[in-house]
C-alpha cells in the first residue's frame, strides 16, 4: 500500500478506506484555539466554530502539511465550506488551498440517491486510482478499528469507562492511522476493570454535534454517567456494522456510508432517529439531555416530537442551551433504575 500523504477530512462520511487505499493518512480536521480572521472576513456566523477554523487555517496556509482536503455532502455547512474554499482558491493567490475533493454522498434513502451515491463512490475510486486489493486491505484495517470502537462502547455500557474518556479514546478513530488505533486500544481497555458507574444515573446526550467531551465532563461532575450520545464522535462512530467483506469493495464501502452513518440530511425521519429510538427502547437510560443551543438550525425541529416520545415513556429530559445552566439540577433529580 502506498503511504505518506495526509488527507484532511471534514467529517465521518468521507470514505476512509478509499483514501487509505490511495496512500493517504486521513485525519479529521479539528477545532483549535485562536482567532480566525479569514473566517471573520468571509463567513457568516451560521458556520460552526470547527468549520470556521478549517476555512481560516486553510486560507492562511497554516495547514500546509495537508496534501488534500476531502469534503462530503453530509451537511449543508460542509457543502458551503467547499464552495467557499473553491472560490478562495479561484480568486486569491494560487497554491494556498490544498487540492479539494468533494464526495457527493446523499442521505435521502431513495433508490435514486442510492444509485447516485454508488456511482459517485465508484467515481471516487477511479479518481484516486486505487485497486481492488488496496481497497480490501484498507477495509480490513478500518474494520479492525471499528471493532475497537465497539469494545470501547461495551466497556462503557458495563459501567467501567466514563463517557468523557470514551469520547477521547474514540477520537483516535478519526485522527490516527486505524491500524495503529486498533493496535493500541485493546491494552488500554484491558486495564479498565473497575466499576465507575455504580448507582449513577445513566444519561443519553442528543442534540447538535459535539465538538469534544466538555459537556460529558459537566454531567460527570454533577454525578451523572453518560452512557451514550447520538453523535458520530461517540456511540455512533463505528456504526452498527462493518464494511462488508463479501461484496465488491465499492458497493460495500458506499453502503456502509449510506446506510450506517450519521448525517443531519438523513430522510425519512424514522431512519434518522432509528438508532436513538432503539437506545431508548433498550431501557438503560435514566434521562436524556438535549444539547440544543439557540444557534442550532436543525435539531430544534425534531425536538418537540422527541420530547413527546420521551414523555410517553416517562423518561425525564432536559434542554441545555449552553454548557451548564439546568444541567446539575437535572442530573441531581435522576435515579438509577
Amino acid at each position, binding site marked *: 500500500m502506498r503511504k505518506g500523504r495526509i488527507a484532511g477530512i471534514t467529517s465521518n462520511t468521507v470514505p476512509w478506506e478509499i483514501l487509505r487505499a490511495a496512500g493517504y493518512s486521513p485525519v479529521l480536521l479539528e477545532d483549535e484555539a485562536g482567532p480566525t480572521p479569514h473566517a471573520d472576513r468571509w463567513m457568516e456566523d451560521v458556520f460552526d466554530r470547527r468549520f470556521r477554523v478549517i476555512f481560516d487555517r486553510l486560507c492562511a496556509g497554516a495547514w500546509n502539511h495537508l496534501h488534500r482536503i476531502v469534503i462530503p455532502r453530509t451537511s449543508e455547512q460542509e457543502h458551503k465550506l467547499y464552495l467557499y474554499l473553491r472560490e478562495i482558491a479561484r480568486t486569491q493567490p494560487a497554491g494556498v488551498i490544498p487540492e479539494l475533493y468533494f464526495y457527493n454522498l446523499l442521505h435521502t434513502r431513495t433508490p435514486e440517491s442510492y444509485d447516485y451515491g454508488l456511482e459517485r463512490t465508484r467515481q471516487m475510486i477511479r479518481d484516486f486510482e486505487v485497486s481492488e486489493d488496496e481497497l480490501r486491505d484498507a477495509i480490513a484495517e478500518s474494520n479492525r478499528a471499528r471493532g475497537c470502537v465497539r469494545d470501547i462502547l461495551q466497556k462503557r455500557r458495563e459501567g467501567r469507562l466514563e463517557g468523557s474518556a470514551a469520547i477521547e479514546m474514540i477520537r483516535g478513530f478519526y485522527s490516527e492511522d486505524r491500524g495503529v488505533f486498533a493496535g493500541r486500544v485493546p491494552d488500554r481497555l484491558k486495564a479498565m476493570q473497575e466499576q465507575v458507574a455504580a448507582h449513577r444515573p445513566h444519561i443519553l446526550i442528543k442534540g447538535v454535534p459535539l465538538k469534544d467531551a466538555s459537556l460529558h465532563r459537566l454531567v460527570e461532575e454533577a454525578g451523572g454517567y453518560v452512557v451514550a450520545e447520538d453523535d458520530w464522535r461517540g456511540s455512533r462512530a463505528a456504526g452498527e456494522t462493518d464494511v462488508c467483506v463479501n461484496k465488491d469493495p465499492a458497493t460495500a464501502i458506499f453502503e456502509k456510508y449510506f446506510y450506517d452513518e450519521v448525517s443531519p*440530511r438523513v430522510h425519512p425521519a424514522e431512519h434518522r432517529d432509528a438508532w436513538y429510538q432503539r437506545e431508548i427502547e433498550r431501557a438503560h437510560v435514566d434521562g436524556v439531555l438535549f444539547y440544543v443551543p439557540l444557534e442550532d*438550525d436543525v435539531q430544534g425541529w425534531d425536538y418537540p416530537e422527541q420530547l413527546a416520545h420521551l414523555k410517553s415513556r416517562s423518561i425525564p429530559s432536559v434542554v441545555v442551551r449552553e454548557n451548564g445552566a439546568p444541567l446539575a439540577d437535572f442530573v441531581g433529580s435522576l435515579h438509577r433504575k
Partner: protein
Amino acid sequence: MAQKQLTSTIAASEGQKAWFASLRERVFETRAPYAIGQADMPFELFQAMDVPMVSNQWWAAVVSAKRLAPYYLDKLNEAGFHKGLCRYCSLSMASTVLGDTSQAPWGGLPKPSLLAARLTCDCVQRVFETWAEQCGAELILLDAPAATHLPPRWWEQSRHDWRELFEDHRLRFMVRQFERLIASLERISGRKFDPDRLRTLMEQVNRQEEYFEEVRLAICNAPKTPVRMHEQFTNVMAAQWQRGSDWAVSQAKAFRDEVVSRAEQGIAACPNERLRIMWVGAGLWYDLDFYTAFEESHGAVFVWSMYLAFGPDGYIRYGLADPLLALASRTVSMNEQLHNPPWANEWIVEQARSHRIDAAFVLTPLGTRPSATGTRFVEIALEEAEIPVFSVHADMVDARLWDAEEMRRDASRFLDHVGRR
C-alpha cells in the same frame, strides 16, 4: 406604500388574488388537489399536470406583509420549536397548522395534497416533514448534490450550454427524482404526464423570461428607471409562480410593453432619481415602504433585485428536445446561483455594472440564518468593484427583529455618504 404607477402591477395583484380565490374554491368545493412547494421547485411539472402549486415563500411574504408573522411565529415557539430556528420556510406551516388559522390572509391556505421541497439546507426537510404529518399530505423531497464544475460567468452558458454547465450526473439524477414526483402527481391528479405539453410550456417560459429580459434592458438603458423595484416584484412574482401559463406570458408581455413604453417616453418612476440602488436578497416583506423611503431625501431609487434580473439568466433554456433534462438544469442549482459563491457574487457585480448601480443594500437574514451564506462574498465582491455596501441585518418575514426607524436612520447616513462621493 407608494402608489402603484403601472397598470400591469394592478393587473398582476388582481390576477394573483383571483387565482388564489379560484384555488380555494376548487379545493374546498370540488376537493381538487393542490400543492405547496419551495420557490426553487420545478413549478413547470405541476403546471403541466394541472396541479396548482402555492409557493411557500410567496405565502410567507403575504402573511408577513399582513403583519401576521409575529402571531404565527410566537405559536411556533409555543409549540416547542426554539426561537433560533429558521422562519422564512416555517411561517407558512405555522399559519396552516398552529393557532387560529382562519386569521391568515384571504381566509388562509386550505390543506394541501402534496408538499414539495428541494433540500438546499438541513432544516427544510424537517419543516416539511412536520408540515406533511400535521396536514396528512404526501411529501416529496428532491435531494441536491453539489456542483463541482464551477466555471466563471455561468450566465453566459446557462441558456445554450446548460448540459455542460450543470454536469451530466446531476442532471440525470434530478430527472430520476422528477420521475418520482411525476408519479405522485399522476396519482394525485388522475392525469397522465405528457412530455410534449411540458415542452410547449417550457417554450412559453422562455418567451415569458425574454419579456423580462427586455424589461431589464430598459431599466439598464434608461437614464432614470421607468419602474420601481417593488412593482417589479409584484409583476415578476405573480407570473413566475404560474410560469408558462397563458396568463403568465400575457402578464409578462403587458409588463414589458408598459415599461418599454415608459422608457421610450422618458417617464421616470422617480423623477428625482440621483442614486441607483440595488437590493441583494429576499424582500423585506413586512416593510415594503422601506424601498421608497429615500427617494425624496436622497433621490435614492431601488432599481434592482434578483426577482426580475434572475428571470432571463436563471430560467431561459434553449434546446428543449428533452424537456425534463432542460427543466432539471433549471432546478439543480437555482438557490445556489442566487446566493452562493461562485455564482452569486460574480453575477451580482455584473448586474450592478450593467444597471449603473451607485450603492448596494445587502440583506443578511437574521432569523433565517442558514440562508445567509454567501452574503459576505457578495459584499466583498461589490466593494472590490467600488460599489458601496450597506449591510442590512434583518429577517425577511419576522418583523419582531426590525426597528424601522433606526434602520431608516442608518440607511440615510449611508446614503448621505454615497451622495457625497
